[in-house]
């Protein structure tokens, strides 16, 4: 099986516009989540993670906020490659998003609402050889994009794939999670006894996967394996047994003969809702991951939906490279029924294997394994 390398990180989120800046803000315990008076007209005290306007450059006259974010990440990831491989047939861009330009829904029949518009925009802006692939699979979109990229490379379909994740905070998503009573007051507290829900955040992030390690100017890591699995249980409630998440982890580790005990760091989904976090703790115990250092990044920039898997994988790889894992912000007192080794102060990873997991509506779950250094 061919090796798959991963690198060329880019990011745009409430905490900063470079991987280093964001990671260092996290090391300092900063959060990008802020109190906003009736955000987007929604009656909530839940803090939101908004990208500062001065981070986002207007790409074209009529390009949207999300398109500008994706374009910026594309440019910054490509700048970390020796050449731009995406103007050739053997390069592909995958865009992971749940809702795309959903901020345009107030204008009926706005063509920018179509998710394919993001692909058209990127293709035209950067002269891409192939039409970008659009993955919209709820909150696992980002991790699924990375897994899909690696599989396409291993199947010999492409040599280089950029995975871009992007979602914005909007009236649409904020009102929906409010209607589901899923938003926390103030700040989220993943895995904590007093957790009451999520914060929404917005982000775009990019990673490049390739079978050619000379593509990268700087450091790169290795993608090892990954899998998705469905709970086959409920469309909006996590499985009580963590079935799908457990299966996705088993199907990630077993084929490559990596034992759960060998994992040095687990970046979990940790939304801060009662049911999600509890489900994860059960799945992790079933998967023998209870002792692995684990955190949720949601307290730093919120739940970024389709971008979450890309930005959190990207920052997890950064933390592994620097050998300093950051605390699970918002966590104080154990609030899940199965044991977890939640990171409460900066520590080094216990090995060079990094596992990323995600779960989402539709009963979907995904896991991906990386080797760093």
């Amino acid at each position: 099986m061919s090796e798959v390398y991963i690198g060329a990180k880019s990011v745009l989120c409430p905490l900063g516009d470079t991987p280093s800046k964001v990671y260092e803000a996290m090391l300092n315990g900063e959060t990008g989540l802020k109190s906003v008076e009736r955000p987007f007209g929604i009656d909530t005290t839940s803090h939101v993670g908004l990208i500062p306007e001065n981070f986002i450059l207007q790409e074209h006259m009529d390009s949207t906020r999300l398109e500008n974010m994706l374009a910026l990440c594309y440019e910054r990831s490509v700048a970390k490659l020796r050449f731009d491989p995406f103007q050739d047939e053997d390069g592909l861009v995958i865009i992971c998003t749940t809702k795309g330009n959903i901020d345009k829904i107030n204008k009926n029949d706005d063509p920018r609402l179509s998710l394919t518009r993001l692909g058209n925009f990127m293709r035209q802006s950067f002269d891409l050889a192939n039409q970008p692939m659009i993955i919209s699979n709820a909150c696992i979109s980002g991790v699924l994009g990375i897994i899909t990229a690696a599989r396409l490379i291993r199947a010999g379909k492409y040599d280089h794939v950029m995975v871009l994740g992007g979602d914005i905070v909007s009236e649409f998503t904020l009102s929906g999670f409010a209607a589901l009573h899923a938003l926390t007051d103030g700040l989220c507290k993943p895995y904590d006894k007093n957790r009451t829900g999520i914060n929404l955040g917005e982000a775009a992030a990019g990673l490049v996967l390739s079978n050619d390690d000379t593509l990268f100017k700087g450091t790169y890591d290795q993608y090892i394996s990954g899998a998705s699995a469905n709970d086959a249980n409920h469309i909006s409630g996590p499985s009580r047994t963590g079935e799908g998440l457990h299966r996705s982890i088993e199907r990630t580790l077993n084929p490559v003969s990596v034992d759960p005990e060998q994992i040095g760091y687990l970046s979990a989904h940790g939304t801060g809702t009662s049911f999600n976090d509890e489900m994860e703790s059960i799945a992790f115990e079933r998967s023998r991951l209870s002792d692995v250092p684990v955190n949720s990044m949601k307290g730093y920039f919120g739940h970024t939906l389709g971008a979450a898997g890309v930005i959190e994988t990207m920052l997890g790889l950064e933390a592994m490279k620097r050998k300093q894992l950051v605390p699970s912000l918002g966590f104080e007192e154990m609030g899940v029924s199965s044991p977890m080794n939640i990171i409460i102060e900066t520590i080094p990873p216990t090995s060079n294997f990094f596992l990323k997991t995600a779960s989402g509506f539709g009963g979907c779950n995904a896991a991906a394994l990386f080797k760093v250094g």
Partner: protein
Amino acid sequence: MSLFLKTYCRIKDGEVHINGELFCQHMDEEPFLRSVYKHIGLTYPKFFKMDELSRLGFIGAEMTLMRSELEEYADDDVAVVFSNHSSSLQTDFQYYDTLKSGIASPGLFVYTLPNIEVGEICIRHKLYGENNFLVTERFDAAQLLEQCEALFADNAAKAVLIGWTEVENDTHDGFFAFITAAGMNEVTSESLTDIYLGR
């Protein structure tokens, strides 16, 4: 890598075709998908809670999987990879209307993700395998079969239920196919496109 077509189903213009043969037509006063549901004698109350996109996916999966010897596969050997052009946009508008009328509907909001229909299918058929949802300009057989190949090459599935589900008001454009890594009836993106187009 060779791919094989086991079963396929076409749902369009008030007709359901299975493996190229007419299975049923829209005859009665009921909305089309409800009448198909009745025609096949299903008892699955969750069907009535679903949005139209999920109903289309649900019926298509039912028709296809029932004829694909599903019992021969382990419960995580069958992947579900769906696609469409409009994502969940029709339900997005319905949800947004409830928001603007003053009471945002949480029940509708849940359906504002296209992969919810994949979740409904996995619940119904107890499928714990791989999932993906791709959004493309039009039915893209090459991209869907490429996904099958990538899954088979990674030993992540032994069969894939692929689907295309487009809903606009009361018109439906559904195509479903059970693709396997081993079998009799070899399929290519050209032949699958021909089947989709009814050529």
